[in-house]
């Protein structure tokens, strides 16, 4: 079981409020991603759940039991650190076994469990090596092995893939997701990368300035962002925002349209007129950065190759059903 509930969790460092009251319900077995810009408090929130920091106020319940006064090891969680945090003087076997050794598990059982974890993670040939003799991806696997071997109620991941190169990151992303589904253990995963969030999560928590802006499934966040912040943060390239007269006509202070919901027409008449400033041709997609005079720079995404170049005149026609409207305070206006 790994049901985690946050009730009005607060954290201050001196006069600085890092977490300003977080309420959250994480169901057993789900993969939840905390995402937000640097300094939004996502890592702090994870460390509060882990017990590496003490809460200033509120309660953290794990399977219904308030754990705010329980030391990290007794919370039944395990954590994978950004820096891997492997014990450099121990072999891979020693690293994975350490938690079990501390828990006083019998030697035979430790060996059995360590070998099973190593087999799951393809680490068997490396068991007797030291961390310094491993590649980045292998070290990451050892860190994960150390987490799974203890059969925790939940895994906590603190930006575990950010030290890996792009190709390896995509591969590890898949492996982590698959492993979590296979084990069925609750996971909380912190990242600043919204692509990681969208691809891995069952549910995403978007944090900003120590507050939870929205909690929902990736598609909920994509389709129905609560506010300007979530709308701008989720989705790549970023949503286009337009203010002024155009927005007022729609009964909003700001309207937003995602790049993929703008139809591009060469020399077209209707819609929003502009000049292509930069065109990125990826083969599968074409990203256009269009200077639309008073509307500012707009981004459009076209699936497939579009033969447009800087200086070409285009018109961008927003899909009326996909226009997001926001009020003065930045909140979404739902029809």
């Amino acid at each position: 079981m790994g049901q985690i509930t946050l009730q009005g969790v607060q954290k201050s460092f001196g006069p600085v409020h890092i977490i300003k009251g977080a309420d959250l319900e994480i169901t057993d077995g789900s993969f939840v991603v905390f995402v937000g810009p640097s300094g939004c408090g996502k890592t702090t929130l994870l460390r509060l759940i882990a017990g590496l920091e003490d809460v200033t106020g509120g309660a953290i319940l794990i399977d219904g039991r308030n754990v705010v006064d329980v030391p990290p090891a007794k919370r039944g969680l395990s954590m994978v650190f950004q820096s891997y945090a492997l014990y450099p003087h121990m072999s891979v076997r020693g690293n994975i076994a350490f938690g079990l050794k501390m828990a006083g598990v019998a030697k035979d059982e430790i060996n059995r469990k360590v070998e099973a974890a190593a087999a799951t993670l393809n680490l068997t040939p490396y068991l007797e090596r030291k961390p310094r003799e491993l590649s980045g991806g292998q070290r990451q696997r050892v860190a994960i092995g150390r987490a799974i071997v203890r059969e925790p109620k939940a895994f906590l991941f603190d930006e575990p893939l950010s030290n890996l190169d792009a190709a390896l990151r995509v591969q590890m992303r898949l492996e982590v997701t698959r492993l979590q589904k296979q084990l069925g253990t609750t996971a909380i995963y912190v990242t600043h990368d919204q692509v990681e969030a969208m691809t891995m999560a069952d549910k995403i928590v978007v944090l900003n300035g120590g507050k939870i802006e929205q909690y929902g499934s990736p598609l909920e966040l994509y389709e129905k962002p609560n506010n300007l912040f979530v709308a701008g943060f989720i989705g790549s390239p970023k949503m286009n925002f337009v203010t002024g007269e155009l927005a007022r006509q729609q009964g909003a202070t700001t309207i937003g349209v995602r790049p993929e919901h703008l139809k591009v027409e060469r020399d077209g008449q209707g819609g929003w007129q502009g000049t292509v400033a930069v065109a990125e041709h990826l083969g599968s997609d074409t990203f256009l950065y269009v200077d639309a005079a008073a509307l500012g720079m707009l981004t459009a995404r076209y699936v497939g190759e579009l033969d447009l170049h800087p200086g070409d005149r285009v018109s961008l026609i927003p899909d009326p059903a996909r226009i997001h409207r926001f009020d003065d305070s930045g909140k979404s206006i739902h029809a």
Partner: protein
Amino acid sequence: MARMVTTRNKVISTAAAWLVGFLIFFPILWMVLASFKTELEAFAIPPSFLFFHWTTENYVTVQERSDYLHHALNSIIIAGGSTLIAMLIAIPAAWSMAFSPTKRTKDVLLWMLSTKMMPPVGVLVPIYLIYRTFGLLDTRSGLIFILCLGNLPIVIWMLFTYFKEIPKDILEAARMDGATIGRELIYVLTPMAVPGLASTLLLNLILAWNEAFWTLNLSTLEAAPLTVFIASYSSPEGLFWAKLSAASTLAIAPILVLGWFSQRQLVRGLTFGAVK
């Protein structure tokens, strides 16, 4: 473009390094040479460098007049004992300052170092009186105690800087893995800090071995280490250069050998962990 290092520059800097090295080493060399001279040749002007009558009679005389082994044993016990006790106190102290600092940690560190800024002679009289009252004069335990206290600030500082280099994540990982503070110290921190601990231990051993102020003032014979043994050859009746040199050579020989075999750790220790 990388900076050009010409052969000429290399030769000049190598020569300069050797020159400085030789200048620093010269007094020790001269002492060793003097220990093999007769008393007359030892202060002859002009001095003879290598072409003199080599003799080992000074070593024989020194051993006859005073018991080298007795003093050497005292030195080992006092330097070793004070170092071990200092390490035992300093490891947890430095651990707490490095990994759970409070607002006052920096002040405490500075305050500890400031005790090293005071000249020891300033507290000689009170310490002497305390030692006399408690019967600690000329005892090994008394010297172990004072040297341990004297070097403790430096030991804590050194360990603190080493511990600071250890990533906090690793200790947090150990905490998540269920290690108590004690086990964290034994299984994770100490093994990772072995190079730092070794160089701290060595440096402190050398400092304690060479410490002359307290050992000279607080011991006479029973507990007297090699420093007292050396000093006994500079007496009011006159200086015996050759015998003094022989005594000094005997006194520094063990620590010189130790230092030679652990140069790497020592350099790291002396630079307070700045060189990796």
